[in-house]
């Protein structure tokens, strides 16, 4: 079954054509990477899928239902959740409280005005589970700004996972990480993909990670989807070699 489908999606920013007639279908349970040089329109594509911006025309479908132009919060409720290129956290709050806010939203407890926040046992258990699963348990009392860069990215993904996504979008999960942290992050992404049978899309520049992890790779160049296929197909695709691999040496 196709989880996410884009039909002829276009977006302009002024004179720039940042999404050119993009059509694609992502199957349920797929782990797919979107690659492309800087400025190829990868983050724009994520923004369109998650409702941050609306495409000029074309349609976006989630499990067969049209979601073009829907608000981010309703898409999150449907199960489309993202993590950010620059970790988007509540920096003055503790690690636990960052997850607490997400769990609160997931359980719909965010409108309780006068009830003490500690009473929601389901919310607390939910947070504990995510903390343990992502190896953040020892750091739950630290404030988000005190974490290392790598841990901030992990927390960002942890917040996304707290929302129990059906489709998880990760924008450059290893950006700015040390080689060590990259290996850990790669393992983490593969592990959660397998454990939760999660349809996962990630944007990435680290080619080792892309070719080692993704089932399917899609190549975006100047707003255009020029190729899709498994690692071997992409490596042998002449359009990719010309447009992409030719410039950026692996």
């Amino acid at each position, binding site marked *: 079954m196709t989880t996410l489908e884009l039909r002829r999606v276009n977006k302009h920013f002024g004179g720039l054509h940042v999404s050119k007639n993009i059509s694609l279908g992502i199957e349920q349970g797929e782990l797919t990477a979107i690659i492309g040089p800087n400025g190829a329109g990868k983050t724009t594509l994520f923004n369109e899928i998650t409702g*941050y911006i609306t495409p000029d025309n074309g349609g976006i479908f989630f499990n067969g239902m049209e979601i073009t132009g829907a*608000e981010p919060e309703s898409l999150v409720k449907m199960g489309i959740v993202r993590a950010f290129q620059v970790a988007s956290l509540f920096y003055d709050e503790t690690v636990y409280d960052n997850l607490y806010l997400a769990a609160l939203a997931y359980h719909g407890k965010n409108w309780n005005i006068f009830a003490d926040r500690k009473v929601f046992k389901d919310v607390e258990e939910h947070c504990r589970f995510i903390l343990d699963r992502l190896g953040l348990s020892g750091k739950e009392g630290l404030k988000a700004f005190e974490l290392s860069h790598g841990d901030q990215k992990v927390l960002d993904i942890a917040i996304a996972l707290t929302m129990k996504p059906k489709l998880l979008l990760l924008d450059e999960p290893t950006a700015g990480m040390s080689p060590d942290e990259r290996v850990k992050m790669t393992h983490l992404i593969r592990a959660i993909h397998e454990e939760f049978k999660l349809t996962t899309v990630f944007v990435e520049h680290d080619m080792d990670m892309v070719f080692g992890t993704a089932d399917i790779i899609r190549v975006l160049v100047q707003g255009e989807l020029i190729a899709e296929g498994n690692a071997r197909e992409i490596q042998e695709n002449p359009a990719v070699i010309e447009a992409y691999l030719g410039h950026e040496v692996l």
Partner: protein
Amino acid sequence: MSFEIFISQFLGGLSVAMLLFLVASGLTLIFGVAKVFNFAHGSFYMIGAYFSYQAIALFDNFWIGAVAAAIGAGLVGMLLEICFIRRIAGREEEGAFQILLTYAFILILDDAVKFIWGPAYKTISKPESLAGSLNFGTVTIPTYNMFIIFLGLVIVTSAWYVLSRTKTGKIIQAASTDAQMVGMLGVNVSLVMSLVFGVATAMGGLAGAMAAPLRTIAPGTGVEVIIDSLIVVVIGGLGNFWGALFAALLIGEVNAFGILWMPQWASLLSFAVMIVVLIFKPKGLFSREKGRKKI
């Protein structure tokens, strides 16, 4: 409404609009370039009027008064920018603190003029050369109002020229989009910001001096002016120079004709206009953003 009344109300509204634009364009310029919301901008209008009063008392010349108002208000503006506003740049929640800091200036400047010139209101008279009126057939217009309209046009044109046709204007525009990069190119960005602040407050001061013969000079007049200017820049879009001009004209005319239509409530009409604009265009009439903002 007879044609005569229409023309005289229209021109009256136009002269009010020009004074309003002199203040509002400074407010919008500071916001557009320095990203500072100068809540105290109306107070520079007020001290401009007082400086002009003082200069006229000393030299008995209206034009010296106008120059003193512009220079004096500009210098005070630069001083406050250098001593205070600059110090909170880059702080968390900078916007809120800017508003509070400039709000404090209002309180201080109001009391300062009360301390120096006393709480009683002051008046100055029109320069003799402009004291008469002009007759266009059956319509009579005070010469001074026509002069203000003329002066407003001159300032609009020269501001446009400086901002879009000169090197200084290009530096100002570049600094407003990427101050850091312009700084790398060897431009003293903080000096540019201070100068913009100085020029904008000088325009406010000049407006105060020009308006003084038509209104009174008193502590607290800055407050009315800032509220009107706020309405103008919000309608035109913060930082939008031409938007401010259009909105000033709109508000000036709405007031001029509103006073005929519903005299008691005319002063509240500008609010109504602003609220209507904001409902349909939350970022002002000339914002490019279509529809509502996400998030």
